[in-house]
């Protein structure tokens, strides 16, 4: 059997075995999927040993924001610095662990949970949980009268009149600021905070 005939014979057999070229393609795609899957399962497990969770970092932010905000004098009557969570709490014990043994402006920082916006009197920072989404506008209307810094994950938070909105940049948590809303509530945000924000709506009033 000469070479050409052998090639042809092999081709024919390959054809029979694979029922045409498309079957080969099918097999190829499946192989790729499996190779990739196996590789990533192994590597993925390795890569994610000890990252902090999203809400660990957000809790740290909530605490830190307090250092970069000036409240009007009449909001400072309380003996504690309350960081409040409105709605169903995504932090669990993380927030309490973060603020424990800490002070801001000499006041002990305390984590507090509230069920209604009206209960926010005395809070300096209020994190509005996603469970409040249907009531967001009315919550914010109440909170704006109470001189509190409002923070949320809600994707429309700034547009609805909230002050600080957490945003994701890849796997990193960052935040955007609505300066106008903060000023309307009588809060002054430091330039340091604005510098780090991904986006600032409104301009600094003189």
């Amino acid at each position, binding site marked *: 059997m000469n070479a050409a005939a052998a090639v042809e014979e092999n081709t024919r057999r390959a054809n029979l075995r694979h029922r045409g*070229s498309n079957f080969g393609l099918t097999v190829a795609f499946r192989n790729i999927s499996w190779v990739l899957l196996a590789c990533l399962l192994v590597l993925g497990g390795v*890569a994610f040993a000890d990252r902090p969770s999203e809400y660990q970092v957000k809790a740290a932010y909530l605490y830190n924001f307090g250092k970069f905000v000036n409240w009007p004098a009449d909001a400072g009557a309380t003996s504690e610095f309350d960081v409040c969570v409105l709605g169903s709490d995504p932090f669990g014990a993380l927030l309490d662990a973060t603020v424990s043994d800490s002070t801001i402006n000499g006041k002990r920082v305390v984590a507090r949970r509230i069920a209604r916006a009206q209960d926010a009197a005395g809070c300096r920072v209020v994190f509005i949980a996603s469970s409040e989404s249907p009531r967001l506008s*009315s919550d914010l209307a109440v909170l704006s009268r109470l001189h509190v810094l409002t923070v949320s994950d809600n994707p429309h938070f700034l547009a609805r009149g909230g002050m600080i909105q957490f945003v994701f940049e890849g796997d*990193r948590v960052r935040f955007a600021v609505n300066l106008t809303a903060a000023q309307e509530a009588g809060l002054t945000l430091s330039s340091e905070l604005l510098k780090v924000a991904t986006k600032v709506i409104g301009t600094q009033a003189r």
Partner: protein
Amino acid sequence: MNSSKSRNQNAVRYLLLLLSISLLVSISALGYCQSLSQTELAQNGQEPLKELSLEQLGKIEVTTATKTPEALWKTPAAIYVITQEDIRRSGVTSIPEALRLAPGVEVGRIDANTWAIGIRGLQSNFSKSVLVLIDGRSVYTPLFSGVFWDVQDLPLGDVERIEVIRGPGGTIWGPNAVNGVINIITKNAADTHGARLSLLTGNVDKTIDSLRVGGGHGQGFNYRVFARGFVRGPEFHQDGNNFDGWHQERGGFRMDWDSRANTYTVEGDLYRGDSPHMVGLGTLNPPSLGVQTVVDSAVSGGDLLARWRRDLGNGSDIYLQVYFDRTQRIDRSLGESRNTWDIDFVHRLKLGTRNLFSYGAGLRWSPFYIEQSSQTIDIEPHKDTDHAHSIFLQDELQIVPNRFSLTGGVKVQHNNFTGFDAQPTLRALWTPSQHRTFWAAVTRAVTTPSRLEEDFNLTGVASLNPLIFLRVSGNPKFQSETLLGYEGGYRQLFGQRVYMDVAVFHNDYDNLQSFGAPSTFLENTPPAPHLVIDVPYANQIAGATDGFEVSPNLHVTNSWQLAGSYSFVTAGLHAAGGTADISSTGSIKTYEESSPRHQVEARSFLNLPFHFEFDQTYRYASSLPAQNVHAYQTMDARVGFNYKELQFSLTGQNLFQPSHFEWGTGDPNQALIGVRRAVYASVVWNRSR
């Protein structure tokens, strides 16, 4: 032999290329994973997070919990959300194709511009028994109980999410939400500031281009306008009659205005296009032969919707929506123009601490005009007004606050075909922990009749000599098809990364569309007297479907997400009267064997270094004997690259075979139309402000 050899060589080359790509991807993934571990090492042994500066906090990579919006988590129904990210990364180019991503949804592409869609069985070429809404506007047509999918082709980049509710949604959603509801929600104009230009070109989707410009104040008034056009090529035709290439142009806008407790939305769009299809046309005079003819369907329409929502505080709100929708579809088989006016009002109020009570009303008028173009297809009367008015009451009672609640309600509807229909529901929700939900529901729902079932006439030649015609005719006494659905489900978040959703159902149907006893008579007009065998629509099929869906979602790492579903459905129907099996619709076999018993869908979204993305979607559907369709499996794959404001991607669809069949043509003599392997490239420029 020569051609097969060269095909083989091509295949080998293809294979090598693919293997090398996969190798490249694997290697880069390896590198990526390593770089990740290094950042972690850097983080280990550091001071507590709270001691870090804001700037440092912004550099920490975090693990995120699988996101399930609160509302979804606490819904006592089988709800699934297709997100914008799912749509973008799966590489789908139309709404019907995107629906394949949801569990329990059966999507069969009939040809390039027609889809047969079902939820939990009873898949049909009319997409009957599935209610479809776009931003609260119903696109379910009272012409034939179903959806014209070709004219629901929104710019996918503006879709925020698609909520798919499997199972009857009678009380909340109104009529025709029998097997499920598809709720398409576009983005708030506050989220579409800036400019976005999207260009796409490929072998099947020839070109899909869209431009959107948006702006506004952010807190107050926001707007966007868009324009979109596409040309799509034909699918695979064994006879070479590539009739189904189509095109469409669309423009629209959306404005959102927030003022503290009030939210206003005004949106609208206009479209026109051509969706050719094949139809059998004949005459009642000799020679009378019905000839399969390609007809151009000139489609056009538009809509305008205004919505006002006022937050009354304390969990109460009111909601008022008004819309106008015009559709026109003219071709040589039949023409329809329809104007729909709709008003919806809902008031939700918190009563005490435990009750969320809501009530509402809906009014809908839909005058239409039929243009008869062929002797053998008609809907009589040619001019009339359909209406569907409804009121509903519902109460959600927290028996154990945040743990156990019961929701009961009823919707009463009046329509011009069957008068009053009541659709009650009772739902229970138990959330033993923050990460676990059980729910169960019993619901009655109805599909109201349409012009097709009441007033339709389709005549074909049964015999030339002697001249005998067979006529399928509408039945003015056609009743509402009813469903009593029993369902239950379970959702759980395991740790931070694994989400599981399981739902089971038993659906009891009655009065399903069938054909009634034939009658024979002599017809004298038009001249040349001819014999007609008349087969009316009837409601003589009953029975049940059973099934379940399992849909896990796994965030393997922050850069890699796996999701998918397995859906099972089986139907057992029987004749409840003298039903005749004469056609591709309305017979027991068609109902039972037109939905895949087993469906698998799996997808992998992988973020790679240097802003690359690699995404795959696999799917399997078992056979549809009534449609002469075999089981198939296929895969889509996408490589994306994001550079600043630009997103490039290369997508392959239906890669396992040159073409595969998903649905029959309804005519046993006509060859099936294959869904082709497709490849397209796209670039999106997105400048957000």
